[in-house]
């Protein structure tokens, strides 16, 4: 491991010692633990303490490459979800003293599960999964230890990724404070898939059902990743999606009742397939990683155009 430091840009490398390709790296809620997963079928957990990194655990159990991992909010415990090419979703829990155990197995998918994402903690422990069988499933964990699984027909050929909306009701400047947190919270997520579509799913408290709330058409090839931006209680919602068609689209919804407006991040195509998008903590910067080994950072300017802030380039 080598650390390079400079004045205005610091980067540090962490050698994961996976025996095969890494597929995902995910920091926990506080940014103090890192989980990585790999084609070597394992998940590794690292403790990050300042510049010190310590591998604390290797989780084994999946029978295929592990695609993605996601940490639950710490108030539910030290809990990690993982999904794999083997079609399974595992929930892992640290029972203290570093004794990790698999506490749940979700095996309702019939093909590779490509993505898992925990919902906002205000909604309780809730997990969305996207699978190559074209389905998206939502797992809800209850206080008594039981869990519910809802499987939704989502994207033909396959669903690639899911991303949850912030739990705050758009437009409500003040976030749900105190009282019953279930009132006024938004229970929504976006999924994307091989049908070139992004879909919005919403839970209706009346019918107790997940419903497709919207279909966003714009990409001309498989949609690889989707990311819902934090909104800080403001009415606007931003959603970024990236695709095999070498474009990134920013979907913007100005208020809860207005339609999603599509805008290409930049008029010309990227040089290669865009594989992943990520929003900064305050939702103002979008990072785009494309197959040409570039990471670019983008920011909306005063004229609502997206401008490149920084670029990882040669």
């Amino acid at each position, binding site marked *: 491991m080598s650390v390079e430091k400079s004045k205005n840009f610091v980067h540090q490398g962490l050698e994961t010692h996976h025996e095969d390709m890494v597929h995902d790296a995910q920091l926990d809620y506080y940014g103090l633990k890192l989980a990585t997963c790999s084609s070597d079928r394992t998940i590794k957990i690292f403790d990050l*303490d*300042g510049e010190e990194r310590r591998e604390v655990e290797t989780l084994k159990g999946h029978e295929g490459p592990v695609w993605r991992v996601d940490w639950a909010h710490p108030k539910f415990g030290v809990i990690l979800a993982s999904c794999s090419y083997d079609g399974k979703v595992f929930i892992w829990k640290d029972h*203290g*003293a*570093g004794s990790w155990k698999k506490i749940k197995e979700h095996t309702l998918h019939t093909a590779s599960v490509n993505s898992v994402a925990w919902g906002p903690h205000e909604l309780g422990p809730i997990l969305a999964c996207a699978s190559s069988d074209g389905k998206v499933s939502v797992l809800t964990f209850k206080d008594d230890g039981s869990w519910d699984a809802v499987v939704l027909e989502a994207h033909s050929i396959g669903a690639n990724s899911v991303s949850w909306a912030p739990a705050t009701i758009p437009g409500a400047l003040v976030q749900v404070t105190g009282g019953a947190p279930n009132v006024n919270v938004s229970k929504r997520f976006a999924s994307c898939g091989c049908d070139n579509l992004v879909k919005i799913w919403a839970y209706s408290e009346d019918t107790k059902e997940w419903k497709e709330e919207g279909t966003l058409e714009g990409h001309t090839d498989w949609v690889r990743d989707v990311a819902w931006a934090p909104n800080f209680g403001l009415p606007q919602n931003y959603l970024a999606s990236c695709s095999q068609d070498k474009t990134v689209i920013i979907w913007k919804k100005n208020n809860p009742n207005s339609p999603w407006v599509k805008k290409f991040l930049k008029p010309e195509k990227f040089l290669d397939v865009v594989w992943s998008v990520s929003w900064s903590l305050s939702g103002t910067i979008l990072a785009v990683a494309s197959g040409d080994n570039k990471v670019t950072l983008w920011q909306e300017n005063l004229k609502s155009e997206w401008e490149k802030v920084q670029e990882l380039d040669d």
Partner: protein
Amino acid sequence: MDNLSSTYDLLGLSTKSTGGKISKVRFDNTKQEFESNEVLFATGSWDTPKENTLLLWNVEQVSFGLGEQPSLTFSVLGKTTHEGDVTDMRFIGDNILLTSSSNGSLNAFQIINTNTSDFMDQSVGTSNYQLQMIMNRRLHSFTDTKNASLNSFAIKPHSINDPLVATVGEDGRIVIVRIEDSVKDHVIEDADASSIKAILWPRSNEIILANGCGQLRIFDPRENKPTTICHDPINIRVPINCLAFHPSKVHKVASGNNKGGVTIWDTRKLTEPEKHAQPHNSRVWEVFYHPYYQELLFSCSEDGTIGAVNFADFTPTFSSQDSMNAVKGQNVTIRKIGFKSNELPINSIDYHPHSKLLISGGDNENLLYTLI
């Protein structure tokens, strides 16, 4: 007591780095006061990951004349890093500074004067002291890998030549160790099922603990079970953060709780607190009795102020389970001492009676002081 009627606002040393947010300030009270004009104290920091520091200070007073406030010159004599937050600190004899850490360890530092000059007095400001770690023992942990904060320690009375130290922490254990001997540790495993916040050792056969559930527990260190458990019925389950001795009465103990209250207890009659006052609106981090005015209790708090409660006029109001306002202390005089418009917590206070100097430190990374 009259000299308390004027307000004592704190002064700050803001331009000097104090090594981070201060969690502890302690005077060196081990030296005879008439030995020199040199007053030593130490500060320890917290929440500065990897860089918590211990500083050894010297303060010199120069008086200009009667009635004039003497001018104070502070200088840092020595510095060392401290692993984990400094949670408690005390000078013991032989130039040793004992500290405890949020990583569960008890540390001892030998203070070594590296200045070879014989003319100590002239070069105090520039003399170099080294703080050399001579002991580092991890005493508190939840599991092998998870440390528990060592919150407080106490030294057995009259054991100063071969100090016997009792430490408590978030793991609910009492560990009694000798500094020079790591073999014969005595551990009381389940002294408390919650976390222990503070400890006092007023008599050799009596240890008093305060816990995170608002209880006081009294132990005979030879037994594994508490002899008494009690709590303040008005502040039920409010964590008690700190304890202090009475300067002369061995059965009197003061405590500070998480809601800004200070309480005086009589350990012979613990069914209910003897006196209570509410000098603060948030967590009290430390309390101490004025060494001469023994009805005067000082406290510092998360609300960013120091409180001085005069219990001399205390007339007990009737207390009953139903009345939340009972023993609220309307009959005590409370004076607040603050620093400019500081609102950041004050974590620690200490007083040097000979030089009448009150020092305190907190989360504004500033050493605060006043003469009282």
